């Protein structure tokens, strides 16, 4: 379970696309339905590129693309195609160079790289000769990785839908959906002081954080949500009568507005 910093890609001036510039802001819109798609690149032999220029040197060790249809694509930094990221977790590839990807979202972990730009070169698509599409791009840095995982019963992820229910005159219901938000409750026990203190620093953040419970480069559950931790911090509670048993308590994460 990872707590990441804010998305470093967050303004329109950072992106360069070779088509559909009007929807380039969708690349960092967290609602993946707002998807950037290419125009005139519906050919697997034609490469379309998206470049994110951060404007200054930044450190990145997590990169994610969600809601895409890319089969053969390469992610590299500082404008050099050979500058792919060396992935530190098991993946279909060992670097950020995919040739036969079938997932619609990928979460890439790698050692920290200091860079100024990241480029996505898109060659082919899942359905051959389609326009290239990307729902959301995240580039950032790990803040804290919670290696002390909760029991299955202690992790309650919920996709909470804000909806309005209309009771029509004949007794029937009509639902108007506004938006779906991710919430989770994580109960932990027997934590060390170091884990507790690290979580306290996450709790104390003034900015939101990005929560990724199980980020994988293939078969990802696509949960990467900007969240806040509301309410109390109760992880100072002792887990048992012995101080060696460590601490227990709960983490609450609630997604922020788009």
């Amino acid at each position: 379970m990872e707590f990441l910093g804010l998305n470093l890609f967050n303004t329109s001036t950072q992106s360069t696309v070779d088509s559909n510039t009007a929807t380039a802001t969708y690349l960092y819109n967290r609602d993946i339905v707002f998807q950037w798609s290419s125009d005139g690149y519906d050919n697997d032999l034609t490469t379309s590129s998206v470049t994110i220029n951060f404007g200054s040197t930044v450190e990145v060790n997590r990169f994610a693309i969600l809601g895409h249809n890319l089969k053969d694509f390469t992610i590299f930094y500082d404008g050099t195609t050979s500058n792919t990221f060396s992935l530190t977790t098991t993946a279909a590839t060992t670097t950020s160079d995919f040739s036969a990807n079938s997932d619609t979202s990928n979460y890439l972990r790698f050692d920290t790289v200091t860079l100024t730009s990241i480029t996505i070169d898109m060659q082919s698509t899942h359905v051959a000769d389609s326009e290239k599409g990307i729902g959301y791009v995240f580039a950032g840095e790990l803040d804290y990785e919670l290696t002390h995982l909760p029991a299955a019963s202690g992790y309650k992820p919920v996709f909470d839908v804000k909806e309005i229910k209309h009771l029509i005159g004949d007794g029937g219901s009509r639902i108007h959906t506004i938006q779906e938000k991710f919430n989770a409750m994580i109960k932990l026990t027997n934590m060390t002081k170091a884990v507790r203190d690290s979580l306290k620093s996450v709790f104390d953040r003034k900015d939101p954080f990005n929560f990724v419970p199980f980020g994988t480069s293939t078969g990802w559950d696509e949960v990467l949500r900007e969240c806040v931790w509301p309410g109390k911090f109760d992880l100072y509670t002792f887990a048992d009568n012995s101080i060696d048993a460590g601490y227990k308590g709960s983490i609450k994460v609630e997604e922020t507005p788009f």
Partner: protein
Amino acid sequence: MATVKSLSKANKTKVFRRAYVKRRLVSTGLFETDWQEISEDIKRWGTIKSEVDTFRASKFRLSTLMLKVANDDGRYNPETDDASLWFGYASRERSLVKIEAGYVDESLGADGIWVRNEFPTDTTAYVGVMSGEILLNDQNSVTLRVKPLTQVFREFPAQLLTGWTSTGITASDFIFMLRDMTDGSSNYLFRPFFGDTTSNWNVSTTTVTYSDLNTSSAKDIIDANCWQVIQKLAESENFVPYVSRSGVFNFGSKTSVTATTAWEFYGINTYNTEYGNTIKKIKNFGFKKTNYYSRVSVRYVDTDTETSYSIVEATMAVAGDNAVWNLGHRILNIENFWIPNTVTADALAQTIFDDASVIRNHLEFTTSFIPQIEILDRIEVSYDSADKSPQSRWDFNNWSPGSDELYWDDSRGDSLVMSSKAFKILSAKINLDKMECDYIVRELDN
């Protein structure tokens, strides 16, 4: 292919609400080009309401939209605060506010590309102007009070207008005078609030010349603001002044309802595959006596003599079908000294009488979200409340099927039955928090 109709009747659909502001530049005083979205700050959306003639003929209320916004970052602080969204811009007061609302249809194509369409085509639900105190509190929330655009007419004394002619002007001339009013340096005073284009002024041309409207020092001008003058002229012409949902100022006849039905509403025990069943509740239906007048008296001369009045009235006769006898006289008194002559006063009295003396039913009902209804739109309503037997259950049976003998009466009753009954919209309210609509409508001839 989704449409507003198909999404309105669908039983699970996605809706959207967006709020924007437009600030004024310090350098020019004019509005910035782009709208600034503030949707993510909205804690409570409030209610958009527009109405004409709902509580009294020729009286118009300007409802306030109350937007409650989160102010954790100080974005709604005074423009002198560098955290404020208005920092570097002119006052927060009289900033434009736009609300967009509608349905959204989202589908993922086989090619992995999302298709997203919003409905209706013009998603603007309201354009208004911030007016009133913007007060901070310890809850980190701020309530923005938003008035209809006609508020800007309230905030300008009629005496300061220029362009009068010595022989007087017509009502439409007065509206055009407002439209073309400048600060003396070719900067328009009202147009910027209405999209900075003359096409957002939908004015029906009138012919009656009001001789009292001939100079800025005319006695009826000196102590009036522009909105008061507009209301008085609307009364004289039997017109309505209102702003459409997209921010177009309308000054036209209240009786000119388009023949095209803008929407059909269906309720209990009625069914329509095109519009679906959208009526949640019928609050009340029936003849609204307070909007019925059997005698219209227009006083158009300042001196109080018999010839100062133009009166049109129904005759009372002791008869079961005589409305005045049945209801008693109800008198509408109008006092308007701008009306230039007897002919005009007679015509006005007759027009109002023709409209107000007919016994018309009013209907007040609540529906799920319908995004594109305008004031004075023609609608149709179908509703059939549950059958009710007025007699005992014993009476249900036909004891001798196929025979005339022993055929028991199976009469039924309904408290409320309407089949494609035509109405015009007098009041339309959208509750943006509940995404439901309330309408007050007046019966039309089908």
